[in-house]
């Protein structure tokens, strides 16, 4: 019973299933997963395999607190508004940041939705959303979602080609602008992760791993090598670095922020370097320091040995003079 109570008080992200090498393959769920990883909030990952057409998923729960995807603009916005996790406190008012995020949330989101439901053969969508449902239900829901997507994007039989050009065109412009904005930086703004990084990284990882090589949109993303490097680097650092299921025996209890709705660990200034880099540099430093110390010791020993030899010769000559 106590174990169940503790389990219910832990933070749990309920998302759609993992596949394509991603912890969750749903393009709506992956940004939330990454956001919690950026915030270094320990959480469990649960999957809902039977509700592919729900707009409530993903959601974050802890005890009786639940942040649904269809409330307050999304899970990330709910976590920010409720004071649970806020990575955007210092950039929320920056016009550039707002407009960049709007581009990602509209042009790129529409392009991904088009590619997933209309522009491809549907195999990726089947695998992510319907592979755990009985065949008749999965088939029906797939056709239903395809129809809804076409309605949302305003696609009809007459304008299908034109709309496809428009959607891909906007995505191309967005990728170019983002590549320019990112440059050689590690993150888009202020060299630290924000929800913009979480959303775009989720988009990029999905494009790179869930779509086949024949995907038009994927090829447009691959034209910008710095975006691809950015996605691979952050994936290695944040997603593959550790498991989300274990909660470390942490000093500061982030769970208390869910209970009392207080400030999160990210309200203060961010740390200068990530932990991984510091470990490698530290190893390098220690290695170099070892070499230096050894070298110094050898030098001292050589010096001492040379100094001890000359002093003995002077003493013998003085004794011979005194005997005549």
């Amino acid at each position, binding site marked *: *019973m106590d174990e169940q109570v503790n389990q*219910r008080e832990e933070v749990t992200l*309920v998302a759609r299933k993992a596949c394509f090498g991603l912890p969750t393959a749903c393009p709506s769920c992956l940004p939330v997963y990454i956001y919690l990883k950026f915030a270094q909030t320990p959480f469990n990952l*649960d999957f*809902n*395999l*039977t*509700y*592919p057409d*729900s707009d*409530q998923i993903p*959601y974050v*729960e802890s005890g*009786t*607190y*639940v942040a*649904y995807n*269809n*409330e307050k603009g999304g899970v990330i916005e709910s976590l920010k508004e*409720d004071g649970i996790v806020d990575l955007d406190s210092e950039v929320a008012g920056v016009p550039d940041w707002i407009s960049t995020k709007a581009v990602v949330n509209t042009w790129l989101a529409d392009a991904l939705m088009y590619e997933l439901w209309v522009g491809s053969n549907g195999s990726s969508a089947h695998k992510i959303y319907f592979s*755990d*449902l*009985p*065949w*008749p*239900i999965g088939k029906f*829901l797939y056709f239903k979602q395809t129809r809804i997507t076409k309605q949302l994007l305003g696609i009809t039989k007459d304008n299908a080609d034109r709309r496809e050009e428009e959607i891909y065109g906007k995505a191309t412009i967005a990728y170019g602008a983002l590549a320019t904005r990112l440059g050689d930086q590690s993150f888009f703004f202020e060299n630290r992760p924000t929800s913009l990084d979480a959303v775009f990284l989720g988009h990029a990882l999905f494009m790179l791993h869930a779509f086949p090589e024949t995907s038009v949109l994927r090829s447009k993303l691959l034209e910008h090598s710095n975006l691809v490097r950015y996605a691979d680097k952050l994936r290695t650092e944040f997603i593959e670095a550790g498991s989300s299921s274990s909660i470390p025996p942490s000093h500061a209890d982030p769970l208390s922020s869910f209970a009392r*709705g207080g400030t999160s660990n990210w309200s203060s200034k961010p740390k200068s370097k990530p932990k991984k880099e510091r470990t490698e540099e530290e190893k390098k430093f220690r290695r170099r320091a070892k070499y230096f110390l050894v070298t110094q010791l050898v030098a001292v020993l050589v010096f001492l040995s040379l100094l001890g030899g000359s002093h003995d010769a002077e003493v013998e000559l003085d004794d011979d003079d005194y005997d005549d």
Partner: protein
Amino acid sequence: MAASLQEERKEQSSVADGEDEKPSNGEDEEDDGDEIEEEEEEEEEEEGEERQKPVPKESRTRLQREKMENLFRRISTERVPLRVHDVVIKGNTKTKDWLIEAEVEAIKNATTVQELLQAATIANARLHRLGIFDSVNITLDSGPPELPGTSNVIVEVVETKSPLTGDIGIFSKPEARSWSLEGSLKVKNLLGFGDLWDGSLSYGWDQTSEISAGVAFPRFKGWANPLLARLSLLSQDWLKFSSYKERVSGISLGLISSKNHDLAYNLSWRTLTDPSQMASRSVRRQLGHGLLSSIKYTFKIDQRNSHLRPTRGYAFVSTSQVGGLAPDHRCLRFLRQEFDLRYAFPLGFYHTALNFGVSCGVLFPWGRGFLNKPSPLPERFFLGGNSSPVCTLGGPTTLLGFKTRGLGPTEPRRQVRDNFDDESSDTYSGRDYVGGDLALTTFADISFDLPLRVFQEAGIHGHFFACAGNVTRLTENACRDLSFQKFRKSFRSSAGFGIIVPTKLFRMEVSFFPETGIYIKLSIWCPCVFNCCNEV
């Protein structure tokens, strides 16, 4: 009656033989006076013949009456052998002959008059029960003269002129504390197979709504059992109690339906949603789509003398359901078993009777990793509601004195941001009833007539009752913590007394519970039936 007609013929022929013998005897005795006597006799014969013309009718009637009386006497005292030669069916223009022949099959096997009369009565009732005839007449006629001891049976039916009927009514659902408006249209005998097609719509305020269409065949050629098929779209609202809504669309097939046995297959698409977004954790985990492919077998014996107020007899019902009967392993897989036992015996004064009963049920998922899987939420047992356990035979569902779904495991609902610090919120509205996998209910009820004759004549009676029940979880390793002592200690019980007022349109129960006070339950059935004379 064939037998009576043959006897008349024999007696008539014997009477005719007797008349022929008299003149032959007279002619042999005298010679001289023979001619005179012959003339006299001829005159007498002529006069006799003249006198016989009006007399045979009266004597024939008297004779027939005597024969009928003799026949009835014989039928009541001895077995009168008889064989059915042919069954003739008349009047059916649309209905297939084989359908009517199948319903009157037993008549052909009758070997005596008594059996024939009994079989004819049963056949008449079965044909009426089909609901496709306005009238049914079965006439027993004599067989061909060359085949003595036989009878022809003539079945004359009048097919209904108004195959389209409908009814609309208001009914109450005490378990759900709501009312529903129900209407249906029925088309009878569209294909001539005795088929009954119906479409129905039920709209319930705050609770259940259903649209369904079905067809029932009383029999189909060689298959003697009735066949039922039904398409339905059902929506149930349990937001108030368990924070979910259920939508089920599917088809059910009744394979065997007899007095004691019922076998049905169900294939349906079930969706659980939570529009309120306030569900507790375990309910949230169950939201989504599922495919239910199950077979359900019910064995029922009900030897009680009344379903509403039994005073004598017993009833036993066993319901077994297996879900997941499909090649696709992603279907809902579970095993569900229910038992009901009721017994009533009279106490001998004021029409008093003691009813007691026990109901139990168990639910378990099956398949790989079944110990860690939760059981399907809609299949679980929920105890509560004020349906009389004496009248209901549907597993452990009702427990007098408790609210709908008011007994069993609960979980806290979601708390929104504003209510985080509100510790004084109503616990009932803040918790979901999530049901259980093992349920047990028992009850004892003593019903008695009220002293006044007015009440007795109206059927108004009183009753004392006591109930107890419990429901618990077994799945997700909860059974490891379960013990008999724990289960016994967590039983809940209630007791009280009440008055029941049955009428043609509704049944009212006024009950008093010492803990919760007075409770009034109104069960309404107010149908209005109409016929449409549009021939199809």
